[in-house]
């Protein structure tokens, strides 16, 4: 194995701006590489899943076999050999954990190092965390307190066992297993993820958060998240992700589904910082993710906020289907690419119900030799009377070797609705840098300030701690990329 020892890795990471690049040495129980029906049966069996889940997986696997990896994104990469991936990997310890004390101390230490303290007494007030290590959820905090409020927040594996009816009702209802190549693969092999259910009229009393970590070199990570907000419910959910530095490319193919019923509201925030590969484009995560929410009920609202700074390749379009009348969809995104990173990300807003509204704010920053694309679809159907969309997509270029691309798809079949889209691409302002420098700021601080100003509309959508974290992250990522 070409993996670095932990100490080496931390050292390298410190010198190389990716500070999460260490690997934790833990014993793994791995499946053999490759994918076939037996592997899927085994995943299902090991998790003790009911029959309907196995059927769900096998059906997805069958449709996946007939699908081809998409070619249309504006990214270039060496295609993966799907038979070289380990489809299930879990830390070797007791499979069932009753409390945090039983979690492998190595894993807990890893989360501490990442700045995600799991021990409840140290928790930031009001944030409940589910931690997914490689493919398995290792700990969920504040479960009891949430239960009192009626909120279910647990790992997907537990949800399948404890709430099979809810899972059966909603899983795959927003992203059908045959939706696309990667979602089909995920549906066949997903190992864990988070499940959130907020019942009628309940405002979730704290922020919910999942922390994803890929640790094992050859394993793919296929988590599955399902969030359901019943009538009048509301919840805010955060996710963060990191991975060690490996020379090989690892696959992260997650699926997130959100269902919002009448008058409910779901806010989903992501700070994505998977390992982006080195400056020559070696290694890094392939982040091929399907995220979609449906505003099923009237007056419901789904809001996606993402800060994408990591991954070698990002392919991701968090979307909202606006089915209920007066429903609202939002997408706020900052995507930063540096070195050899490539990102093709954006959103889809599908207006079906009357008086539906959507807002898209996308800020792309390209530096180094990276390529950064916004791709988005706004579609207003013939029955979506009185609907509105407003989109603004700005790109900033830092250095002359990178590229910025904007591909909005705008379609309207309704003559009482309106769509407004604006996009700009420009260079980071030299006169702005000089102005700030003449007020005593270093060049790097000036750039960081300008970038933060550029992204402000998005950052203000993030919960406080996340916003601060995101700003710091951008500054670190851009270090040394100007001049």
């Amino acid at each position, binding site marked *: 194995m070409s993996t670095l020892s932990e100490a080496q890795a931390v050292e390298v990471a410190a010198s190389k701006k990716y500070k999460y690049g260490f690997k934790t040495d833990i014993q793994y129980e791995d499946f053999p590489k490759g994918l076939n029906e037996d592997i899927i049966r085994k995943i299902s069996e090991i998790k003790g899943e009911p029959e309907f889940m196995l059927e769900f997986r096998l059906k997805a696997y069958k449709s996946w076999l007939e699908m081809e990896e998409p070619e249309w994104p504006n990214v270039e990469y060496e295609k993966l050999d799907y038979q070289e991936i380990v489809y299930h990997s879990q830390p070797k310890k007791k499979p069932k954990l009753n409390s945090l004390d039983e979690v492998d101390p190595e894993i807990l230490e890893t989360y501490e190092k990442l700045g995600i303290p799991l021990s409840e007494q140290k928790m930031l007030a009001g944030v409940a965390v589910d931690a997914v290590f490689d493919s398995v959820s290792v700990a969920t905090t504040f479960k009891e307190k949430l239960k009192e409020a009626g909120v279910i927040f647990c790992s997907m594996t537990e949800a399948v066992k404890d709430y099979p009816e809810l899972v059966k009702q909603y899983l795959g209802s927003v992203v059908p297993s045959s939706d696309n190549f990667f979602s089909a693969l995920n549906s066949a092999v997903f190992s864990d993820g988070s499940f959130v259910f907020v019942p009628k009229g309940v405002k979730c009393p704290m922020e919910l958060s999942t922390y994803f970590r890929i640790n094992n070199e050859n394993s793919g990570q296929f988590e599955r998240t399902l969030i359901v907000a019943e009538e009048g419910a509301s919840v805010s959910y955060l996710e963060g992700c990191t991975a060690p530095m490996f020379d090989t490319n690892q696959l992260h193919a997650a699926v997130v589904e959100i269902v919002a019923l009448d008058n409910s509201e779901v806010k989903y925030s992501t700070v994505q910082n998977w390992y982006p590969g080195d400056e020559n484009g070696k290694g890094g995560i392939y982040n091929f993710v399907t995220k979609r929410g449906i505003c099923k009920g009237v007056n419901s609202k789904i809001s996606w906020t993402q800060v994408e700074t990591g991954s070698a390749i990002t392919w991701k379009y968090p979307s909202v289907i606006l089915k209920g009348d007066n429903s609202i969809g939002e997408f706020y995104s900052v995507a930063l690419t540096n070195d050899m990173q490539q990102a093709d990300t954006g959103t889809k807003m599908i207006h079906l119900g009357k008086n539906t509204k959507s807002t898209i704010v996308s800020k792309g920053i390209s530096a180094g030799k990276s390529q950064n694309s916004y791709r988005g679809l706004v579609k207003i159907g013939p029955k979506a009377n009185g609907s509105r969309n407003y989109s603004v997509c700005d790109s900033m270029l830092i250095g002359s070797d990178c590229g910025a691309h904007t591909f909005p798809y705008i379609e309207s079949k309704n003559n009482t609705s309106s769509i407004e889209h604006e996009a700009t691409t420009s260079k980071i*302002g*030299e*006169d*702005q840098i*000089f*102005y*700030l*420098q*003449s*007020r*005593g*700021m*270093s*060049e790097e*601080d*000036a750039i960081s*300030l*300008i970038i*933060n*100003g*550029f*992204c*402000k*509309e998005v950052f203000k959508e993030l919960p406080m701690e996340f916003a601060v974290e995101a700003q710091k992250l951008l500054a670190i990522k851009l270090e040394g990329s100007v001049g």
Partner: protein
Amino acid sequence: MLKIIDLHATVEGEKILKGINLEINKGEVHAIMGPNGSGKSTLAKIVAGHPAYEVTGGQILFEGEDILEMDPDERARMGIFLAFQYPVEVPGVSNSMLIRQAVNAVRSERGIDELDPLEFEDFIEEKLKLVEMDDKFLDRSVNEGFSGGEKKRNEILQLASMEPRLALMDETDSGLDIDALRIVSDAVNKIRNSENAFMLVTHYQRILNYITPDKVHVLINGRIVKSGGKELALQLEEKGYDWLMKDQLVNGEA
């Protein structure tokens, strides 16, 4: 305080400054006057360290130290302040954040404790009064959507806050109506003391009715062609620049 010796500079290969000599001592106000394109704004920007200009010869000494190799932010922290002719808009960055960072950058350089947000509030309140600005300006993005006069007042607010040793004012008077000019001038007069110095770059002598200069220099075609007291400015007001340009031509030919 500031000593410029035989300064030559170009921008994109074109010679703008052709041998400037100038000395400004603490407690002094110097006016640099000249027609459009004479190089007077360039001079101010070069002292502040604008990267677009290339210094091809000569020296700039500030407090005895050669500053030509220094970045603009180093110069700012040393106490050189440029009030821009066209203040730049910085979307998304609030004015108060900029000013607090700027003030703290200067303070930490001077070994004074940095201001926390609460202390800053008290600090800036005083300064706002000086330029007769509303505190709502603090919450807005830097110069974004400001009127011309508001931008210039904002420059003076920054000047007052950063308490520079040398303030370079690049056509601060241009585009100001009479009231705004009075506010700006009053503020400058209050800031002016025996320890700091001002270099006023201006086309017209109008502002000099409010801020009395110790010395007036006329810059034409990249050279200082005449220096004198405040009465020189009045002379220019009356006669324009033509008589000096003719002189310069004769000298140039000789």
